């Protein structure tokens, strides 16, 4: 009898625990779902295929899928673009719905596993050159919507060449180790202490927008270092993606939300111009985002940027007489080649030619982008708001490395600017463009 009672007692306790556990799990799931509902995009019934595909097209823009999955002058989404990294050359796959050369045979779940887990349909692990480390934050619903759009594209019969990855990186099982160290699958979890708008911005920046892929320094194994969005040299490209946290780089704590939106949608504002790879991101992706989404991104970016007062001022070592002579040479070069557009005091012309005095992309620690702008020149992104931009001539064929070093050193230290001088060697190193 007492035994029986003891059994009952044990059972009831177990049952009680089980019920509690179920309740807790249910509550967690419920709360998670409730919060998840605040990011991503509203569900569309699959009967409304047009709207679904339209929304998918929008999300594909936001994720800039064609940026990598379309070769220069190639068929959209048919892949074949070569992405040069320190591990070798990756060739992007065809993601049109062609049955044998594309992803025509894939199911929604296959696609989800690739995006969310970084696993291909055949179970192979994907290289993180495909930014599943960021895309994992995309909601299942948005992933399905993207898939619906990709499946609606014209199928392109195109076999792309294999990756050119030397040993040991071509040994894919190594990715198990890499993933154990650096990858955690999981949808974006909204921060309940923040607004819906902020969470939507964070969702886009951390997930689909994969800003991390460039704006975070990668370590020796190609993984993003801890300090997300703290800036870094773009892998395989001789450009520096400035920190989105630091106010001495591209942090936006003292920018208005409207100005951030203006830069991301038009490519140019009164005080900044997006150049190099960022101009391309604006042309291909950001200019097509809705005002609401851009505003959400701006609210988020503004919130993560540090405050000016938390930063010690940058000290620049004093310079020798010889260096001063070099600055004078730089000034003469400036007067000959730059002043006509950028003005005698580096004041520029708002919305046309960028101001150089007090321009953070001129004075930030890495002089790389300034050097590359002088070498390559370039036009800002052509956008709906800025359809006929003025441009910067390339000077690589006119100025020698030494002259560019003098010029950049001068610009970095004129009109109140203060930053380290650059050397001929810095310029020489910057001449290679890295990627094809």
């Amino acid at each position, binding site marked *: 009898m007492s035994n029986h009672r003891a059994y009952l007692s044990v059972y009831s306790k177990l049952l009680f625990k089980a019920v509690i556990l179920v309740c807790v799990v249910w509550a967690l799931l419920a709360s998670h779902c409730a919060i998840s509902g605040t990011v991503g995009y509203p569900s569309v019934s699959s009967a409304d295929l047009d709207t679904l595909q339209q929304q998918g097209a929008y999300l594909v823009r936001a994720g800039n899928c064609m940026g990598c999955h379309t070769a220069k002058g190639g068929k959209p989404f048919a892949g074949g673009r070569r992405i040069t990294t320190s591990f070798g050359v990756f060739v992007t796959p065809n993601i049109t719905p062609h049955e044998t050369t594309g992803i025509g045979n894939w199911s929604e779940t296959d696609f989800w596993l690739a995006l969310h887990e970084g696993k291909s349909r055949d179970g192979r692990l994907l290289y993180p050159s495909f930014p599943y480390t960021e895309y994992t934050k995309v909601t299942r619903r948005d992933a399905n919507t993207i898939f619906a759009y990709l499946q609606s594209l014209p199928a392109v019969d195109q076999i792309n060449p294999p990756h050119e990855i030397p040993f040991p990186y071509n040994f894919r099982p190594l990715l198990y180790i890499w993933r154990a160290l650096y990858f955690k699958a999981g949808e974006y979890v909204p921060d309940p202490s923040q607004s819906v708008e902020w969470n939507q911005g964070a969702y886009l920046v951390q997930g689909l927008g994969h800003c991390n892929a460039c704006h975070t320094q990668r370590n020796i194994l190609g993984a993003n270092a801890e300090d997300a969005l703290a800036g870094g040299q773009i892998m395989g490209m001789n450009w520096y993606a400035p920190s989105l946290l630091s106010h001495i780089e591209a942090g936006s704590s003292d920018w208005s939300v409207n100005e951030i939106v203006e830069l991301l949608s038009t490519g140019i504002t009164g005080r900044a111009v997006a150049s190099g790879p960022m101009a391309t991101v604006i042309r291909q992706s950001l200019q097509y985002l809705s005002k609401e989404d851009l505003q959400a991104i701006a609210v988020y970016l503004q919130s993560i940027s540090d405050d000016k007062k938390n930063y010690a001022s940058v000290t620049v070592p004093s310079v020798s007489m010889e260096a001063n002579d070099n600055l004078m040479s730089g000034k003469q070069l400036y007067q000959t080649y730059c002043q006509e557009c950028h003005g005698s005091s580096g004041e520029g*012309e708002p919305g046309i030619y960028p101001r150089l005095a007090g321009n953070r992309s001129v004075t930030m620690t890495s002089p790389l982008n300034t050097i590359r702008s002088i070498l390559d020149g*370039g036009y800002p992104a052509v956008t709906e708001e800025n359809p006929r931009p003025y441009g910067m*001539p390339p000077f690589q064929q006119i100025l020698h490395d030494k002259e560019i070093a003098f010029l950049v050193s001068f610009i970095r230290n004129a009109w109140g600017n203060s930053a380290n001088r650059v050397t001929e060697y810095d310029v020489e190193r910057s001449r290679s463009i890295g990627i094809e």
Partner: protein
Amino acid sequence: MHLQVQADSYASIFYKSGHGLSFVLRKPSGSSKAGMMYSILIVCALSFLFPNLADAVPDTMAERVKPCTICHGKEDRAEQHVYYPRIDGKPWGYLFNQLRNFRDGRRHYQPMAILLENMSDGYLMEIARYFSELDLPDFQPERHMMQSGEIDLAEQLIYSGYPDRNIPACSNCHGQTLMGTIPFIPGLLGLPRTYLTAQFGSWRSSGLVRGQVSDCMSEIAKKLTDQEINAVAKWLAAQIVNGKPDPSVALLPELAQRCSSIVKVEYPE
């Protein structure tokens, strides 16, 4: 206040942010001389009030194409193993196609590809049209020693071709005056011999424009001998530039077909 009244009577003033001040003068209905005087007065007064008026960035194509004209001047130029052909006065369709070829990687030259990376078709078209409408620069015909046999050979290729070798006459596509056919085929005069032979070399190696389905110029260049290329290049470089292309000259349908990738492109209105 007084100035404002004058301005209202004679001029409409538009202020564009970032572009300084620009204004349009309307002629007064009365005496045009007095109107002119008033206009000058207003301009002077305004320049005094807005001293940076003269410094404003001109809202012109010339200003917008500064990145082009730093290299592509009035004349062909060679510097540090790079050749910069003149582009003024070349047909717009030809220029537009080359701009797109550079941007989209069909014609490979990295500095051009980087410069044009983020340009739209519409803007490239505007740039192409701008350069096409500029006057052809003066060209000093080059002097080359040519044997009479060499001259005959060049003229045979230029005006008759070799139908049995399936080589059309240059003039069939590039026009009887060799100044090109509008809008896609460039002229052949006013170009130095070195540029012409270099282009032939690129065509022969299929390296000039890659991935074209009907690569007519490559096919023709591959059929020519070194001797023929040299003769044609010397002959062409020695000619006097002969005006602009004749807009009434159209490409023969047969050749338009043969060079369809050059003459049939989708382009924005």
